[in-house]
């Protein structure tokens, strides 16, 4: 992971009982938005993400995901020409981290409180020191945006490159934009139904705030 101070909970937002779990309350400042009509399927975004941040070319751990939609679109393999991707209508949907508002599914599912908010963008990032590599976060994200790096045995996700995303800079067709955060969680259809469970201690924290 890149360097920089990792703040587990910020002054304004993160709610934590004494010694209790981290709950992210702050909203992110920015996010990457994508225009599928402009995507040319070159995957330079995936490569910039991992080469310039991790020193290796590795679409599997890229925090923007193109490859899985490249050929047949988000719905997998079509039977005819009705799908997306190069084999369908040509559209390549870029999968991007929504930098979810509270409650943040990946963070809430983490048994080690390893997904935290990091200024200046307030991106939700993996604190690799705390990450145990259990992959619970991957089961929590409806958009399958959590990656797992088998080289480091840690989870990884989009951290907005601290405000100047490499993927945006790398796109040769200007299909990506770094923009002010807005809530896309209700707009982008989930890829999977999450199967992660919230740990009892966290559930308790939820109930403390959301008293009936």
């Amino acid at each position, binding site marked *: 992971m890149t360097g920089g101070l990792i703040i587990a909970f910020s002054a304004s937002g993160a709610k934590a009982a004494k010694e209790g779990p981290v709950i992210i309350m702050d909203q992110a400042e920015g996010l990457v938005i994508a225009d599928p009509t402009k995507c040319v399927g070159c*995957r330079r975004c995936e490569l910039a993400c991992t*080469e310039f941040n991790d020193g290796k070319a590795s679409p599997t751990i890229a925090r923007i995901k193109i490859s899985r939609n490249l050929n047949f679109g988000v719905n997998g393999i079509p039977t005819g020409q009705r799908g997306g991707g190069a084999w369908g209508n040509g559209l390549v949907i870029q999968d991007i981290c929504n930098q979810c508002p509270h409650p943040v599914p990946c963070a809430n599912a983490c048994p080690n409180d390893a997904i935290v908010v990091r200024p200046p963008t307030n991106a939700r990032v993996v604190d690799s020191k705390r990450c145990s590599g259990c992959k619970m976060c991957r089961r929590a994200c409806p958009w399958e945006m959590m990656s797992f790096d088998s080289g480091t045995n840690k989870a990884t996700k989009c951290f907005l490159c601290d405000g100047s995303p490499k993927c945006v800079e790398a796109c040769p067709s200007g299909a990506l934009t770094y923009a002010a955060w807005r809530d896309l969680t209700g707009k982008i259809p989930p890829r999977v139904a999450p199967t992660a469970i919230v740990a009892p201690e966290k559930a308790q924290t939820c109930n403390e705030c959301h008293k009936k």
Partner: protein
Amino acid sequence: MAKHGGWAGKVLRVDLSTGKISTEDTLEKYRDYLGGTGIGYKVIWDEVQAGVKSFDPANKIVYGVGPLAGTGAPCNGRTAITTLWPTCWPKALVASGHMGGQFAAELKYAGYDAIIIEGRADRPVWLSVWDEKVEIKDARQLWGQGIRRTTIEINQQMGPEASVAAIGQAGENLAPMSVVMNSYSHSAGGVGGVMGSKNLKAIGVRGTGSVRIAGNKEEWEKLIKLHLSLLGANNQHVVPSNPQPWAEHYNAGSRWMASAGRRWGAANPSIDTGACEPHNLNRIAYRTNNAAYFLGDKAWQHTVRGNGCTACPIRCHTMLKVPAVSAKYGIPELGQNTCVGLLFGRAFFKSFPDGPKGQTAIEACMVGMYLADDLGVWDNYGQLQRDFQALYYNGIFKRKVAEKEFNSYSWNKYEQGDPTFLFELLPRIANKEGELATALGLGTGHLLERWGIPEQEWLENHDLLYWKLGHPKHHSNEDAGQCGVIINTQYNRDAQCHSHSNFTRNGLPIEVQKRLAAELWGSPDAVDAVAAFTPMNAHKAKMAKWSLLRKELHDCLSLCNWMGPWVASPLKEREYRGDDSIESLLYSLATGDKKSRQELDTIAERIFLLHRALTIRDMGAKDMRTKHDTIPDWVFTDPKDKAAFSKGTIRMDKEDIKLAMDMFYEEMAWDKETGSPTKATYRRLGLGTVADELAKRGLLP
């Protein structure tokens, strides 16, 4: 993790006869040959005896990629496939086909720098490569299916990310004019039948690993940005096709097609390609539209977007949407390809009712792509279609084919430029139905022999562009005078070299080209303006050597020689210089093995020399000058009978070309009389054992 960055570290070897699957350490065994064609030539030299034929089980196929494949280095998407070439006539010699797409990167992520296929399966199989899990699978259900159906079914098993390189019916039926294809539209010609002869329907690759960059990641990022800044449009054309505010130069022949008002009309909503000022790296992908370049303005309204290989910002494949073809021909309204693949269908016809750039021409392209890229038929750089026109209009088909068969084709449709004719022709080529189609599927050399037509007729015909060994010229005297001629003498198929033509066609004024040429090859006289050629000089020989070595280097590193080298750029502040060291800078940082430009060129020379040695060994001849490095007669003629070196002709002069070959052999330190490399040259480049082997066979000069 491999010791070096760049390489995956392993070469996969699959014996289809025994089912044995094994791996080798890339660097231990192939380090001196980098990757790609380097590994290919090495395997063929070491393991395939002279005299083996293309479709023998003893022939091998090497799918090779290099240390830059799968990285973010621009233009690294090509897989080099080396084998004994089935359309090389009169006997098969070593050659390579090159496919783009996603295959090269996926192979690296799976952990391999190459796949060596040997033997022959006793029933149809496909190879599944899923990271370290490699399996030979039953392909009996896939046999007889087209490339698209095959790919879909393999993707159903391996997931949507897998890259599938498959053959169609043409390859299965051992038509030498057949391809292997991956990622919908990326093919390597000539290889389909060799795969078919091994009962190998396809290779599916899924890789979840990574390619490590050995160097400092900030330095890598800087280098990538430098390289991106030097890119032009497709074929490294560095000026736009019309005057634009930011551009000092423009050229109507440029593939830099983007301009305000030219839109991807079938995108929804449509997208203006607009100004693509070179410093704006977020607009590189709009520069090229090869459909518009080849098919004219009408293609803009049908353009959905550009497509292409992994990591390449130049999208040379154009995705077209032509709704009319769906009802008219019963084919999908979307199609994509580039260059001769795009023109596959159109090129058969002499004319169309609405002209060469009308709607019917576009529809012929759509039908051609639909059929050829599914059946897996190869066109040998357009020679198939040039031959077809000549054989029909000269009445040869009528003479050579039985009347009943001849009349089974709708020749009236053909003459009228009706694309439905392709439905009669292409499936028959793939299925070897009848004499006409079977002969076409053999490739030019074998076709001429089968029908008793002297090759000489083809060698003399200016329009057919035929060169030798069953293959056409590929960027010869029309592009770079003597330098182009030299390059076209060297390979066992069409030369596929673009190092020289990407320079001469870059669109810069001749004075700028000459200034750059002086820096690169020692004198402005290394290049001439097109069709204003001057007599041979040593600098042209230097340029020829440089062109060949860079082509070979690109084929080993996995850089695209259809884009590189990058010695000219669109940047005025650099006085349009590119960077002659970009390959070595990328190689050094990616692998951690620091090599200068000269050191890397020396390795490329070794690899090119091994190709030469293989050609000599398998021909069993050392007199390459007269037996191999031949030049067709049309090169020395002019349609208006203009004299060589007069302005307005690409005609070459026989004595001058003799001198050109002398100078080239000298530059290579080969024997001038025979054109064979000397023992000292083999030794200097680390191929002493190769020289010894050739000496045993009496094949040293």
